[in-house]
């Protein structure tokens, strides 16, 4: 790795840290993913392998993310052993610290014994030919690489959208619940406070809660008014010396939609 590349990577690391610290979700994703998956591995592989082509590029493709993940595992373990909690700041310091330390070592090494630059094979280093791709090259590249790649991306995007939409549609149904917080014992008055909740109530429907005793007598009806989230919560004073059944009814229906039972307190 050349010194200039190391500087660029160091700057990117600092920018990624700033993005993570900013706290905004999109910026955090843009900064956090490279910090977790790319930058430590890139710096460590540059530190380990001085020659830019060793290991070969596809080996580097594997090494960079795996070295980054190894940094998280081994570094996280060391940090925890040292007694520090594994929170965002810790992960940030770990990944950025490893990256910058490795890049610093690379830069020091380059300053002491510079790597002989490899001859450029890019557009500006052709001793006997045009430096820019020929028009035919561009067209062929478009046909053989860009077009199919774009097509693949479109197809995969369509597949992911379709799966996500159908999964959400089929699984994310409104669940109507009736529940009570485990009630305590009855107080001196023989009653107890019971926190009753209902969720998933339809906005346009009217509901009522009917409380009956074990003998089916003493029924008490409470009107249930859900908020805009379909949630209703109320604390009821209920007798503690009887087994009670609380039924949630949709207005106009005789069968309870949901039922909870409270044993004698």
């Amino acid at each position, binding site marked *: 790795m050349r010194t200039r590349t190391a500087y660029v990577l160091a700057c990117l690391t600092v920018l990624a840290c700033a993005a993570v610290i900013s*706290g905004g*979700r999109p910026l*955090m*994703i843009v900064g*956090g*993913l490279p910090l*977790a998956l790319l930058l430590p591995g890139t710096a460590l592989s540059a530190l*380990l392998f001085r020659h830019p082509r*060793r*290991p*070969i*590029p*596809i080996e580097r*493709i*594997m*090494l960079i993310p795996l070295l980054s*993940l*190894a940094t998280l*595992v081994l570094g996280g373990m060391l940090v*925890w052993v040292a007694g520090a*909690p*594994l*929170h965002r700041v810790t*992960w940030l310091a770990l*990944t950025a610290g490893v990256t910058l330390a490795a890049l610093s070592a690379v830069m020091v090494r380059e300053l002491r014994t510079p790597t002989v630059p490899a*001859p450029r*094979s*890019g557009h500006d280093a052709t*001793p*006997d*030919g045009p430096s820019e*791709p020929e028009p035919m*090259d561009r067209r*062929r*590249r478009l046909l*053989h*690489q860009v077009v199919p*790649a774009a*097509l*693949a991306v479109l*197809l995969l995007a*369509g*597949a*992911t959208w379709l*799966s996500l939409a*159908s*999964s959400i549609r*089929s*699984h994310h149904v409104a*669940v109507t*619940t*009736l*529940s009570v*917080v*485990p009630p305590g014992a009855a107080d001196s008055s023989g009653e107890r406070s019971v926190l009753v909740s209902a969720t998933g109530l339809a906005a346009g429907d009217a509901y009522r809660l009917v409380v009956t005793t074990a003998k089916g007598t003493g029924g008490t009806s409470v009107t249930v008014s859900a908020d805009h989230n379909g949630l209703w919560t109320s604390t009821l004073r209920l007798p503690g010396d009887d*087994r009670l059944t609380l039924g949630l009814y949709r207005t106009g229906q005789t069968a309870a939609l949901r*039922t*909870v*039972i409270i*044993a004698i307190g």
Partner: protein
Amino acid sequence: MADERASGSDPEPTGRPVVAHAKPVVAHAEPVAVRAELAEDGQDDPERPELVPIRVASADDTMDLPVVPAEPGSLAPVRKVSADDTDEFPAITAQLDDTDEFPAIVVDEVAAAEATTAEDVTPAEKVTTAEKLTTAEEATVTAAEQVTAAGEPAPTEETEEEPVEADRIEVERDRRRVLRGSGLGQAPWILALSSLGVLLVALGYAGGRSSNQLATAAYWLGQIVVFTPVVLRLLARRRAGIAESFVLVMGLAVNQYLLKWCYSPDQFRFPDELQHWLATTTINQSGELFRPNPALPPAVHFPGLAEMGAAVSQLTGLPVTAAGIIVAGVCHLGLVAGLYLAVLRASRSPATAGVTCVVYATSLHYLFFNSMYLYQTAGLAFLMLTVWASRRHQAGNGWQFGVLAAAGILVTAICHHVTAGALVLTLLLIGIAEVCTVRPRPWKVLIFPGAALAVVAGWILVVARDVLAYLEAPLDQVVQGVMRFAGRQATSGAAPAAPLWQLGIQALGLLVLLGLFLAVAQDMRARRSRDPWLWAALAGSAVFFAGNGVRFLGSNGPEIAGRLSTFTYVPMSIVAAVALVRGVPLRRPAGSRWRRLLAPEPAASGRTFTWRVLLGAALITVLMAGARVGGWPPADQLLPGPYLADGFERAVDSYGIDAADWEYHTLGPGTRTGGDLTAIALGSTYGHQDPVRGVGPLFYDQQWSADDQTLADDLALRYLVVDKRLGEQLPADRQYFDDDPRAGRITAPLSARQLGKFDDLPQWSRLYDNGEIRIYRVGAG
């Protein structure tokens, strides 16, 4: 034709030395340029025959290329062919510094001409260029310029030479060829077609969710479209370079990972993924490692994956689920890349490496289990990294690879117990094979297996001792199964027989693999091969076949066999790839020519070759189909869809999740809560409950009895989750509960009486009801 090519003696165009085998050279599907470049340092073969130049044909002209001595089907290192840049891709990788392209390795591999007699079968190797290049371009591609005479001292990394001026011209020409797309071949279009398959499978999934009749057809068509074109291309383009085969393999891995993700794209549903979701969430919330995980206690001491997920989640602000999907995807791709590179280094054949990966993609748990957010997924990636790095280190490629191997061993040990054990065994197997086959015996190859054994044993004995008890149960089951089998006793609780068509597909796949295994074994025996890696692969393949026998041992036999195949299928894939790519003789009738199965022999008309490619692709596709019906998800749950009682992913729906959320928010973490399999899976993860397993007897009794009360007391049961739908469906996995006393013998759903009796218990309170699921407080509380 072949003889002409092999016997020519035209001067080498660049005037550089060219080496080749003294004998007629082996005809092998292997790119010579790549081979030369991948030749390992420091492994001089004392038995190496004298090397002489040969003439190699290109598409338009002939030219001399470096040809290395090798046995047919050999995975053994080619000794000392490249000296300038021994383990690089010199003329090819140079361009990567300045372009984002992959190397354009266009040196073709073709099969040998068949010998005319049995004695004539001495393999011949020849090389042609893949593309219709100009003569000048052809001259740039080969590694001939990079090759010095054999026997030259191996250069170290520090003495590696930079490309000279003449190479710069070649590099530019390579770049031009890359710009024309020749480096990637047809990979982009093939992957675009494969992506269409992903869309078809996604349509199948969507159809499954809405119970569409055509969903299954779309699923299978999509699976074939995703997979088979890549296989066809890899088999047909045995002369393809690294760039094309690597892109094909990784593209297929991405597409297949998306198949897994599309099954449940919005959240984790598989119980094991939920367990690791909890482990990650716990680190996020507490900032500590080794916190209890009631959903999967052994995972506490293998926090590698959870660390990765927690770090990604914390740094990006993404939910744990999204972070887990990313981490699992990276690890899965790391596994595939590691497998490709390890086989590439061992075989020096991109085609063999590519076909190995696609064959491995037909293992039972490749598609789902090994790409889920599980600690094994993380361990597998580092297992393969370690194998690759240790290989390169032992080849004398530098101390850096030793560091990588050591790091890989550590991370694998921290990630997953079984994978760590498999790593030790893998390194040991390779080491023993090398010690047994190489002279003088390279005892130093046992350093890495020894180090791995020490690290893994140290971690388990010092940190994760509880995993011994965790692994004891399945091991006991296997041992007992073997003993019963040996005693010919009936195995109670044996796995139910799968439908005949499923068994047929899986049996056909096993037979295909067995045939390839036997062919390679016979070929190696006939050649008296001393290739340690191939012997190790053969031994591992034998374990694969033995492991398949485990599926008949007890009710969990198929699951154990499937999980075992995750590791044993790696060597099996290598052996199958060697057979499919390079071709091995099945038999050798007296006085006749060698018969080659699927050998990439050049046929005058091309028809034979085409048929062989089609047959090979069909065989691998059959393996893929067998893996789909015999792997995960179960064959009757290949498509997502409506709720299935205790059907793992299919059992996780909004009702169960809402109940688990209520447990978390209302009951608080750590409450002893019991229920059926799904209730336990969700309650112990999303609900943070302390799961109470083994509550089946409480459900099966028609009336609450004193025994039930005793059991509830013994289990310290505080809350019980009752799913009404257990009274509507039979369990998808033959049991409703953990430790179900009626597992495998359930013939009818639970009755309304069995499920409703809890309402009649005066001391019990039904505190939660969502229409399908009820949660009871056991006793007065």
